[in-house]
């Protein structure tokens, strides 16, 4: 009996270890190559850790490329998108969760449909619409597009969080003297904070990774985001693995940091959405 228990615990830990290794190894490799000096890159290509490390690749990327600009652009775009989407999705998700109205079915259908749109098909039309408004080649244009793309899923997410908060609470607030909107702001929103954090994180990472529209709507380096910069870098310096990976590591940092901060709320928030109280 105890032998069986121990065996199952060991199997559990080994399985966890395998997952951690699988999840982290590619990232570890990225880091490893980025700190390997050029001279050792090929001679020690498949060693687990180079015999000498250097930051020359990072130095090059930071000093002799536009990466600091890309970095700033990406931060602005992803941050604004995350905030705006969360606000809009909170409002819409609240409506979905709390009201029974005729258009609901159609709104849900529309939002589900948008998940199926082949985005490539939208590039040219969106360009055509945004271009006369001066919104191509601008961060604002990107934020608008990303916000629209992320709102549907974020709305479903927020709706599930609101569904987890008993209706009694806002009714009590309304009897206490609040309007429905005040009840929403003062009672419901604070209770949805984990859900809001989860949505913020989800949208931030999605916006941080977006490549296609950034590539198509932005020309030139001034408004380019990280993915585009990295890609152009890759095609330009496709032989210099060290520099590419150093750039990759830097692209990774903010998204990962942000994610590590909020991932706890993701599970918590989703769970709260499923159970009451």
């Amino acid at each position, binding site marked *: 009996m105890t032998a069986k228990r121990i065996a199952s615990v060991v199997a559990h830990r080994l399985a966890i270890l395998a997952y951690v290794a699988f999840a982290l190894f590619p990232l570890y490799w990225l880091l490893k190559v980025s700190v390997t000096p050029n001279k050792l890159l090929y001679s020690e290509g498949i060693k687990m850790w180079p015999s000498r490390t250097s930051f020359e690749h990072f130095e090059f990327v930071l000093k002799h490329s536009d990466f600091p600009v890309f970095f700033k652009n990406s931060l602005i775009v992803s941050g604004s998108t995350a905030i705006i989407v969360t606000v809009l999705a909170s409002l819409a998700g609240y409506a979905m969760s709390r009201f029974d109205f005729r258009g609901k079915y159609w709104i849900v259908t529309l939002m589900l449909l948008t998940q199926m749109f082949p985005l490539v098909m939208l590039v040219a039309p969106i360009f055509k619409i945004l271009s006369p408004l001066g919104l191509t080649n601008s961060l604002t244009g990107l934020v608008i597009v990303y916000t629209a793309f992320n709102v549907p899923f974020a709305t479903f997410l927020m709706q599930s969080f609101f569904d987890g908060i008993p209706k009694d*609470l806002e*009714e*009590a607030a309304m*009897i*206490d003297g*609040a*309007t429905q909107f005040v009840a929403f702001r003062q009672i419901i929103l*604070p*209770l949805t904070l984990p859900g809001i954090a989860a949505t913020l994180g989800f949208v931030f990472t999605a916006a941080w990774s977006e490549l296609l529209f950034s590539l198509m709507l932005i020309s030139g380096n001034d408004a380019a985001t990280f993915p585009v910069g990295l890609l152009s870098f890759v095609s330009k310096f496709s032989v210099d693995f060290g520099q590419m990976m150093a750039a990759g590591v830097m692209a990774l940092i903010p998204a990962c940091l942000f994610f590590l901060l909020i991932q706890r709320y993701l599970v918590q928030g989703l769970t709260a959405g499923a159970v009451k109280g």
Partner: protein
Amino acid sequence: MASIDIAAIHKSYGIHPVLHGIDLEIKDGEFVVLVGPSGCGKSTLLRMIAGLEAVTDGEIRIDGKRVNDLAPKDRDIAMVFQSYALYPHMSVAKNMSYSLRLRKTAKEKIASVVASAATKLGLDPLMERRPKALSGGQRQRVAMGRAIVREPKAFLFDEPLSNLDARLREQMRAEIKKLHQDLGATSIYVTHDQIEAMTLADRIVAMHGGIIQQVGSPLELYDNPANLFVAGFIGSPGMNFFEGRYLATGDTANFALTGGIVLPLGGTAKLADGSRATLGIRPEHVILGAEGPDTMMATVDLVEPTGFGIIVHLKLGPVAFKAFTLDRRFLGMHGEVAVKLPVPNLHFFNEEGRKV
């Protein structure tokens, strides 16, 4: 404090009617209890008075003023929910003062009102805690406190004690009664609990299927139920019913039970000769071990001691009924026993179930 008039209220959810014309006048300071089986529309009525549910038809007046279209916040009423609905992210003090803060009441006034309510409810040591860190009874008190700090025109309670254990419920019941005596506020109270209804109410409103069955003082409903529903719903153990046929023979009458047994009735009732009817009697009015005329022999099925008294399950032919007695002699009873159904305690209901 205020009077509440409910006139010809109807409510439908979509095409499903829930309330079919409710009329009720509640006087200033009155304590009214709504009882009725699950799903009969008690909560719906309460929520319409609170303004949480739109009125389909009819009129609700508070202090003579029509409030159908007022938002809950403008009706100046307080409500205690079954789930308590305390704001989880606020301390007890913040929970209690929320309504006053929304109304921009002066800080000193809030502090003094909240403090006095806290003292009244014994919440003083708990004021900085979050609801999560309170016991069920304490949460219930906070919910009460939140309602009383505002001195609203009326209190609405929707089964406020049903999540508490029996002992605590008894205690809170007494406290609510005391609070009502102190504040004298108009109150509407929904409950499933017989004893709460009987002890708290100035008037009980018995509802069934979205219709008011009877309104009256607790004893009125108990002694003189208007119809079969009220007779069966009020009282525990419930009233015994015997179906049969009313047979008039001059000045006196008999009641032929469906099982073939004939009960002689001392006098007459306002029923047509030969009509089908139901006869009712409360278990405590059934006389066990009776002697003399008009007694019948019943079989003892089961004896249930409740501590306070004894419930005896009996059978008269195929018809089952109950008797309640305080006499402990009947504890060990079995076999047959002579019973008598005294005529003054009998209730007659006609075919439509109305009392005659």
